[in-house]
C-alpha cells in the first residue's frame, strides 16, 4: 500500500493540490494564497519526480502503474511546464474576468491526468489519464466563455477530442478482444497468431487515430491552430507542450513493444503496418505544418502550425525506432517544451503589455524599438524553434536527423531538413516584423510601454531562456549532460 502510494506520489500531490485549490476557490481565497499554493504543490511534485528519477523501473497498484526513471523524466518535464504556465498565467491573465482559482485547479488536474497517462501500464489507466487530461484542457481552452473566440476554441476542441477518444476506446476494445488482456506486457508478449488477426491490427490502427489526434499529426491536425488561437495564450503554451510530452511518452511505452512484435511476425523490418503509417504521417506533418504556417498572419496560429511540424519531427523517433532515435526524441521533447513555452509566454506578455486585441503579425510592427530586450527574448525562442545553432532546438533536430540517417532513412531526413528550412523562414519573418518594420500601431498605444515584466514573467522567461541556451551546448560541457541521463533509460 505505502509503496504503491510512493510510486504514484507526484500524481497524488497534484491531485490533492487540485482539490485544495478548488475548495480554496469556493471559499473565496485571494490570489496571493492560491498562486503560491499551486506553485508549492507543483514544486513538490517536481522534487519527487527528480528524486524518483534515480530509481529502477518498478510496478505498483497490482501492475497498473509503472514508476521509475523514464516515467519520472516525463513527469518532471510536464510539471515544469505546469510551473512555468502558472507563473506566466497569473501575470498575463490579471484583470480578466476568467481569472479565478479554478484555472489553477484545472491546470493541476490536467497535470494529474498527464502523470497518470505517462505512468500507466494498463490500457484502462491510459484511458482514464488521457481523459482526465483532456477534460481539464477542454475547460481551459474554453476559458474565455464570454468571447466568441474562446467558446469556439473550447467547443471545437471538445467535439473533436471526444470524437478521437471514442476511436481510441474502440481500438482498445478490439485489442482486448484479440488478446484478452489490457496489460501492456500481455499485449507486447502476444503471439504472432494473435498479432496477425484483423482485430488486433484494426485495434492498433484505431488507437493510433486517437494518439495522432492528441499530438496533432496530419491528417488529424485541423483543430490545432484554431484551439491555440482561441485559448488564453499561456494555456495554449501549456496545451502545446505538456499534453504532447504526455502523449508521446505514454504511446512510446505502449507502441514500441507492439510495433516490434508486429515486425517480428511479418519478418518485414520497417514494413509493418504501424510503422509505415507512422512514416507517412510523419512526412505529412512536417510538410503540411511548415508549409501552411507561411500563409498565417496570427502569431498563435503560426505557433499552432509549427507545433504540427514539430510533431512530425518527433514522430521520426517512432519511425526510426533505434536507441539513438529514442534518446533524440526525448531530448527533442525537452527542447521543444522549453522553446515553445517561451514563445507562447512572450506573446502572452506582449498581448497584455501592449493591449493587443489579437495576436496578429501586424501588432508586432515596431515593438522591437519599444521593447528591444523582450523582443530579443522572443527572437531567442523563435531562433531555437527554427533550429539555429547553438540553441536547444538545433541540437534536438541534429540528434533526430542523425539518428534517422544512421538507420538508413535518407528520404525521410531530406524531407525533414527541407521542411525545417521552410519553417525557419516563417520564424525569421516574425523576428523581422518586430525589428525592421515601422510600427504605427504599437507606438500610438496609450499603454505605458515601459511597463516591464512582473516577477512571475521574469522567473519563467529566464528559466526558459537559460534552458534553451544551456541544452544547446549541454553535450559539449565537461559535466554530465541531459543526453547521458536519457541514455541511461535504455
Amino acid at each position, binding site marked *: 500500500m505505502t509503496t504503491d502510494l510512493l510510486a504514484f506520489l507526484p500524481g497524488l500531490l497534484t491531485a490533492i493540490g487540485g482539490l485544495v485549490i478548488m475548495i480554496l476557490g469556493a471559499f473565496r481565497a485571494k490570489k496571493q494564497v492560491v498562486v503560491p499554493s499551486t506553485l508549492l504543490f507543483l514544486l513538490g511534485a517536481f522534487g519527487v519526480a527528480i528524486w524518483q528519477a534515480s530509481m529502477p523501473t518498478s510496478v505498483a497498484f497490482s501492475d497498473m502503474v509503472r514508476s521509475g526513471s523514464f516515467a519520472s523524466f516525463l513527469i518532471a518535464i510536464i510539471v515544469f511546464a505546469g510551473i512555468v504556465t502558472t507563473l506566466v498565467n497569473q501575470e498575463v491573465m490579471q484583470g480578466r474576468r476568467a481569472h479565478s482559482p479554478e484555472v489553477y485547479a484545472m491546470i493541476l488536474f490536467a497535470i494529474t491526468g498527464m502523470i497518470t497517462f505517462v505512468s500507466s501500464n494498463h490500457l484502462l489507466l491510459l*484511458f482514464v489519464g488521457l481523459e482526465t487530461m483532456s477534460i481539464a484542457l477542454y475547460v481551459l481552452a474554453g476559458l474565455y466563455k464570454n468571447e466568441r*473566440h474562446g*467558446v469556439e476554441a473550447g467547443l471545437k476542441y*471538445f*467535439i473533436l477530442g471526444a470524437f478521437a477518444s471514442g476511436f481510441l476506446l474502440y481500438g482498445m476494445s478490439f485489442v*482486448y478482444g484479440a488478446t484478452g488482456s489490457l496489460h501492456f506486457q500481455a499485449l507486447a508478449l502476444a503471439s504472432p497468431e494473435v498479432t496477425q488477426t484483423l482485430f488486433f491490427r484494426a485495434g492498433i490502427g484505431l488507437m493510433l487515430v486517437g494518439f495522432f489526434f492528441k499530438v496533432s499529426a496530419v491528417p488529424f491536425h485541423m483543430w490545432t491552430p484554431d484551439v491555440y488561437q482561441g485559448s488564453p495564450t499561456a494555456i495554449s503554451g501549456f496545451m502545446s507542450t505538456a499534453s504532447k510530452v504526455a502523449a508521446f511518452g505514454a504511446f512510446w511505452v505502449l507502441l514500441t513493444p507492439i510495433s516490434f512484435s508486429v515486425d517480428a511476425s511479418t519478418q518485414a523490418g520497417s514494413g509493418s503496418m504501424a510503422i509505415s503509417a507512422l512514416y507517412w504521417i510523419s512526412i505529412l506533418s512536417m510538410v503540411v505544418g511548415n508549409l501552411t504556417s507561411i500563409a498565417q498572419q496570427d502569431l498563435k496560429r503560426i505557433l499552432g502550425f509549427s507545433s504540427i511540424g514539430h510533431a512530425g519531427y518527433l514522430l521520426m523517433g517512432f519511425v526510426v525506432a533505434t536507441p539513438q532515435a529514442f534518446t533524440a526524441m526525448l531530448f527533442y521533447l525537452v527542447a521543444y517544451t522549453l522553446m515553445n513555452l517561451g514563445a507562447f509566454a512572450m506573446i502572452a506578455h506582449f498581448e497584455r503589455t501592449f493591449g493587443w486585441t489579437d495576436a496578429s503579425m501586424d501588432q508586432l510592427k515596431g515593438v522591437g524599438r519599444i521593447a528591444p530586450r523582450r523582443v530579443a527574448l522572443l527572437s531567442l525562442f523563435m531562433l531555437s524553434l527554427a533550429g539555429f545553432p547553438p540553441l536547444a532546438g538545433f541540437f534536438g533536430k541534429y540528434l533526430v536527423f542523425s539518428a534517422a540517417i544512421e538507420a538508413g532513412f535518407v528520404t525521410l531526413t531530406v524531407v525533414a531538413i527541407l521542411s525545417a528550412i521552410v519553417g525557419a523562414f516563417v520564424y525569421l519573418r516574425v523576428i523581422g516584423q518586430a525589428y525592421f518594420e515601422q510600427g504605427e500601431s504599437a507606438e500610438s498605444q496609450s499603454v505605458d510601454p515601459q511597463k516591464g515584466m512582473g516577477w512571475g514573467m521574469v522567473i519563467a522567461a529566464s528559466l526558459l531562456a537559460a534552458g534553451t541556451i544551456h541544452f544547446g551546448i549541454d553535450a559539449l560541457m565537461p559535466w554530465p549532460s541531459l543526453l547521458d541521463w536519457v541514455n541511461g533509460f535504455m
Partner: protein
Amino acid sequence: MISIEWFIALSAVLFTIGAIGVMVRRNAIVLFMCIELMLNAVNISLVAFSSYHGNIEGHMLVLFALSVAAAEAVVGLALIIALFRNTLSVDIRNLTLMRF
C-alpha cells in the same frame, strides 16, 4: 447462447451511426449525443469481449468509460450553454470565426 459476432456487429453498427452522425449533423447537442452513442457502442463490444474471454478487465473498462462519458457530458453541456449565450443558437455552423 448468442455467438459473439452478433454483439460485435451491433457495436460496429452503432459506432458507425454515431461517427456518421458527428460528421453530418449540425446541431451541437445532436453531435454530442452521437459521441455518446459511439462511446456506448464501444461499451457493448467491451462487455461482449469480456464475457467471451471470461475475465473481468473489460467490465472494469466499461465502468470507467461510463464515468468518463459523464464527465465529458458535463463539460460539453457547459460549453454548449456558453455557445448558446454567445450566438443564441446551438448550430455549429456558427463556429466559423477562426478558419484557414
